[in-house]
């Protein structure tokens, strides 16, 4: 177990080191997220009621597009000069490779969310004073499920030579239940929303770990 966790940490650290060196993902993704919030925010206008209701959904639009870019970028590094084959030759379970990619994607997404969420909260005047930690927990749990699916399909797309916007077209419909449950949970905490999010995460994390073996081709 410790060895597996170490391998996951080594894999995630490699991705983050490359990102730290190239800064090819974070800067771009943060700017995209802020732009989405601004453009959609201005589109809604200044009506406080509309803004309050629409804010969680708009934040999710920013998370979705930013996340897809993160998934594509971290998987693209494996396609340079056959690096993925080197990784697949290592004596590690391919589920571990999935977990490593998931960890680095999640860290990148949390970093992006740490910038664009406060921007959205301020822009739309969201009142989180009742349960600020609950809001953070809901977003974190939702992002885990989103990253679980995104990482799996980014691997699939990179192996099948299907690139570009196709990842968004495949992933967005799949995460729709997660987005609905997440926004409802933010707007009206309580109910079954949190249970749906946790179940979604558990199902997709388990399934992705198992099928990643079949997804990756050198």
């Amino acid at each position, binding site marked *: 177990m410790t060895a597996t966790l170490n*391998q996951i940490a*080594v894999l995630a650290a490699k991705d983050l080191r490359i990102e730290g060196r190239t800064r090819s993902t974070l800067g771009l993704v943060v700017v995209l997220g802020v732009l989405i919030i601004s453009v959609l925010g201005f589109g809604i206008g200044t009506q406080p009621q509309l803004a309050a209701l629409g804010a969680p959904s708009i934040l999710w639009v920013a998370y979705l597009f930013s996340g897809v870019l993160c998934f594509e970028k971290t998987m693209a*590094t494996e396609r340079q000069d*056959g690096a993925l*084959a080197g990784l*697949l*030759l*290592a004596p590690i379970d391919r589920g571990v490779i999935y977990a490593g990619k998931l960890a680095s994607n999640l860290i990148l997404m949390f970093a992006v969310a740490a910038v664009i969420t406060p921007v959205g909260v301020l822009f739309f005047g969201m009142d989180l004073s009742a349960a600020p930690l609950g809001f953070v927990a809901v977003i974190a749990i939702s992002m885990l499920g989103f990253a679980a699916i995104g990482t799996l399909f980014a691997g699939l797309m990179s192996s099948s030579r299907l690139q570009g916007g196709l990842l968004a077209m495949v992933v967005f419909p799949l995460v729709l239940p997660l987005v609905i449950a997440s926004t409802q949970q933010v707007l009206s905490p309580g109910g079954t929303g949190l249970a749906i999010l946790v179940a979604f995460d558990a199902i997709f994390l388990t399934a992705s770990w198992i099928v990643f073996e079949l997804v990756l081709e050198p």
Partner: protein
Amino acid sequence: MTLAMTQLPSILGPAMTADAAAIPVRASGLSKSIESRDILRDIDLEIPHGRFIALLGANGAGKSTLLKILSTLNAPTAGTLDLFGISAAASAVKIRRHIGLIGHQTMLYHDLSAMENLVFFAKLYGIADPAGRAMELLTQLGLANRANDPVKAFSRGMAQRVAIARALLHEPRLLLADEPFAGLDAPSTALLERLLTELHGQGKTIILANHDIAQSLRLAQTAIVLAKGRKVIDTHADQLDAGAVLASMENAAADAADGGVA
């Protein structure tokens, strides 16, 4: 012969038999089809320990596909493959610890330094002193003074030397080399030739896929020629000359053009 083989150190634990040590690669009826196109057809292999094999054939003959299957990167469509006496289909993760692959691609991360690349892979292989082992290999390959430079700043020959270090980090028993000389200049080619010869001298089993027939026959003990996915020649390298190999390739191409089976 049997006694000598039983004295080999066990690489997969006590369960490894003398036969497995003597014949690290045993394949039967290996076939691979991609989108209903046959890439490999019914390949049988029995490669003894410490043998240097040259895998020859024209473009599209199936050399790279065969090496990918032997490295456990790809699974065959049909047939069985045992590496070190263990089924590759059942225990690929265990087997990978003993396989090294050098390709025409470096399989390195260009934004990381040579040292960072090697330490990363060494950690995945569970090597006790990743930095020490990485520096040892970089020193052997004449790159110690460039250890901290990013791979993207390296020439093709230098990057290939780092790739060789990556393949040798875990001291594999079976070394697979897929067109490793592609794009190398003369000094780098000479260095790699010398290295392969040394590794063979250390008892490693080597399978080299290469377009240069004369060079392959000079380096290897056994030549296997593939044509249109089939094994057409499997004999001692010193019993062949480049002309005979070339003729077998041309015959296979002519058969294929006539609609026959190569």
